């Protein structure tokens, strides 16, 4: 018989915002049996993380639990003193893994010291046996050279390795419940899959229950038995993962699913593009890390002898993980970085022979983070209008007409002209960034991870917009992404990059369905998709 491990009833969490009480989580309830896994899905601001921080008493200072009861193994732990909670529950019975492995470990202490102190905090044992326990758990999370690792500092490890250490730290006291808050979001795709697999294996072996928080419905459906869908602090629906996926009750859930499906639709007929627009020939770029008196300079080869062509009207995706050199290639085409060797020919002419203004008329970028790429001191109208002022000699009326037309094209009304970026949502900002880029009617649009910092539902809107613009303006797009679903949805051709080299290139569907290179295979198998049920 399975016993109930955790029962949260009507949890309410509020924020004290300059003396106004704002309710952020409303009537959150959850029942979790021993060894069960449950996933909480929602977009940013849905309250999924805050509700769990309420459970573990890690809420930010302005936030507090309004009301509600938390029964852990039949005992109400919402009323016990902080002292008792910290000594008996947190880290011992309930552990957490956080999203950012880069910052979640203390940079000034060794891995070993952090693991040992975690174990000694809750267990009255000798330092020696704590050391052995730490070694045992580093082994469990499949790190190599564990003895050396113990003496290393967090900055000496990669993101994936740090997250493994974080997992070891969360599990070292054998808790009964593990809360994983977006544990893989900050990691590279191929590493993501390994980490998720590792967490699943470990909780099964150690017999723990898990609450898995994520914005990725596909990932959660693969990891958890039950799913809770949240929006704006409310639980919209909950149930068995397969029920929620196949028979979603709420519109919001259907929407989330549609976003996954829409990226999964059969690819339209591949068009044949013939006119050569951009010819990249054998380009290389290396960076030098500064040395010191006693240390030689270190050279990083970001791009190594890369060649490819871009034809008029097509969408070419450059795929790879962080450090693969894909963004450097984009910067070179964009003129933001100089290449060391090789040539880039735009319409048959060397790209360096264009003046910056001439190049800007032909190539325009859209960047990843719409929160930091728009100048907060300028109005939307100013931001969108500026390329015209710099590059053309149109009259005031012509400019205003064009700004309005372009804003309309990206789905924003004229009312936005006098607003500031801070008054816009992430999706709206990205539309502004796109409007700014297309107002000069460039030949090539370089989109560097255009949707990675947006919520799922917003992502699909932006992708639809790009697709529409592609058809209407016949614009050529270079898409830089690590997200295979996005690539599949938007692009005609794919280049796969790793360590500064092109591993494989070809038709999108061929690459995704029949990858030849081992690395590409790994990359493709790392995506979690939800198949549309017929």
């Amino acid at each position: 018989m399975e016993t109930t491990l955790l029962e949260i009833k009507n949890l309410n969490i509020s924020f004290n915002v300059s003396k106004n009480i704002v309710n952020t989580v409303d009537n959150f309830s959850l029942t979790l049996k021993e060894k069960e896994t449950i996933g909480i899905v929602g977009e940013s601001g849905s309250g999924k993380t805050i509700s769990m921080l309420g459970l573990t008493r890690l809420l930010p200072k302005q936030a507090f639990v309004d009301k509600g009861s938390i029964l852990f193994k039949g005992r109400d732990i919402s009323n016990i003193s902080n002292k008792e909670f910290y000594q008996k529950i947190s880290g011992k019975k309930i552990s957490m893994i956080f999203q950012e492995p880069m910052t979640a470990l203390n940079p000034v202490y060794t891995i070993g010291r952090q693991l040992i102190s975690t174990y000694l905090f809750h267990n009255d044992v000798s330092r020696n046996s704590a050391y052995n326990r730490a070694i045992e758990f580093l082994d469990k999370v499949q790190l190599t050279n564990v003895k050396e690792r113990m003496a290393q500092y967090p900055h000496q490890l990669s993101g994936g390795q740090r997250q493994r250490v974080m997992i070891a730290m969360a599990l070292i006291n054998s808790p009964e419940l593990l809360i994983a808050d977006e544990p893989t979001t900050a990691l590279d795709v191929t590493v993501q899959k390994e980490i998720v697999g590792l967490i699943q294996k470990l909780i099964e072996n150690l017999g723990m229950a898990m609450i898995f928080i994520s914005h990725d419905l596909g990932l959660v459906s693969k990891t958890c038995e039950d799913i809770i869908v949240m929006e704006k602090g409310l639980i919209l629906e909950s149930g068995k993962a397969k029920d929620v996926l196949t028979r979603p009750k709420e519109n919001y859930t259907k929407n989330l699913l549609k976003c996954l499906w829409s990226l999964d639709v059969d690819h339209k007929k591949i068009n044949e593009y013939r006119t050569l627009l951009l010819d990249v020939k054998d380009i290389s770029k290396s960076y030098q890390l500064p040395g010191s008196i006693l240390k030689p300079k270190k050279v990083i080869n970001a791009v190594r002898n890369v060649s490819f062509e871009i034809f008029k009207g097509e969408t070419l995706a450059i795929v790879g993980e962080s450090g693969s050199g894909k963004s450097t290639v984009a910067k070179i085409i964009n003129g933001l970085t100089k290449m060391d060797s090789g040539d880039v020919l735009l319409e048959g002419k060397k790209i360096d022979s264009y003046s910056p203004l001439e190049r800007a008329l032909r190539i325009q970028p859209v960047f990843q983070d719409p929160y930091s790429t728009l100048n907060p001191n300028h109005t939307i109208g100013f931001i969108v209008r500026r390329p015209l002022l710099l590059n053309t000699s149109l009259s005031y009326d012509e400019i205003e007409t064009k700004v309005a037309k372009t804003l309309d094209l990206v789905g924003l009304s004229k009312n936005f002209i006098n607003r500031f970026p801070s008054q816009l949502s992430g999706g709206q900002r990205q539309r502004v960034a796109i409007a700014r880029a297309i107002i000069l009617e460039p030949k090539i649009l370089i989109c560097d991870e255009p949707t990675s910092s947006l919520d799922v539902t917003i992502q699909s809107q932006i992708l639809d917009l790009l697709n529409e613009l592609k058809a209407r303006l016949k614009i050529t797009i270079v898409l830089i992404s690590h997200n295979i679903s996005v690539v599949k949805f938007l692009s005609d051709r794919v280049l796969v990059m790793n360590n500064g080299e092109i591993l494989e290139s070809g038709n999108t569907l061929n690459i995704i369905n029949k990858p030849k290179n081992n690395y590409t295979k790994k990359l493709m198998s790392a995506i979690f998709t939800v198949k549309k049920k017929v």
Partner: protein
Amino acid sequence: MLKFVAGRFLVSLAVAFTISFVTFFFLNIFTDPAQAVAGEEALFEEIEQIRTQYGFDRPILTRYFEWLGGIFTGDFGVSYYWNKPVGTLLLERAPQTIKLALMSVSVTIMVAIPLGIFAALNPNSIIDRFALSVAVSAQAIPNFWLGLILIIIFSVTFQIFPVSGDKTYYHFILPSIVLGTSSVPPVMRLMRTGLLDVINSDYIRTARSIGFSGWRLVTKHALRNAVLPVISVVAVQLGHKFGGSLITESVFAINGLGRLALLSILGADIPTVQILIFVFAITFIVFNLLSDILNAYLDPRLRL
């Protein structure tokens, strides 16, 4: 770590040489050493005689290397104004300044660090406000005023401490309070903001999720990170104090390096002034080097 220390040491050495070079050149080009020795009312012939007698007519580079060589062999030159070897002068004056510097920095640390920690742990509380007002007042009050007020209260009215002089450690208590107070604001503020930043960081959240709380959380997980910037500032303050405080030493009649520097400048005593500038620079460099090494010891990311 050894490589790091060696590297920093070489850089410091280069800086020290540059400073010695620049000081020597500026002092010997923009002033006339012969005129300075001869005095203001000396005749042209007298000045010229001194010039050849003291060797000021030789090329400046020769004199520089002679001077530098002298420093390495312990010969700091002779003061025309005090009629003593500069080395002897330094040995007479330095102990007072070192005592004052160490004691005043101890005062700073004892006041500023606890205040900063408490302020950071209770932001916007009464303690925090109190700490802030202490910082603002300490910054606004001039040293000579605070010195005189302390003398009036503790030496004249209650007669607990001596009015002035530098014979015993007892004499140094009031001046240390005066000098130490002026360094409280920067150290306290840095301690407060540093700790506040650390406390809101992800790794402190991790430590809290393990169960660490209260004082143990601060000492075991936060303090080492927060104290890094404080060390650099304390080192700079210590450097300042070792240069001697002109005002505080004058108010309390302490015969330290500060007063020596003042009188030597007024007396146009070039040999003493250039050695003092060099010594002050070297103490700054040494403290910076020590703080860099301590920082690197505490924070592995700095050991590059």
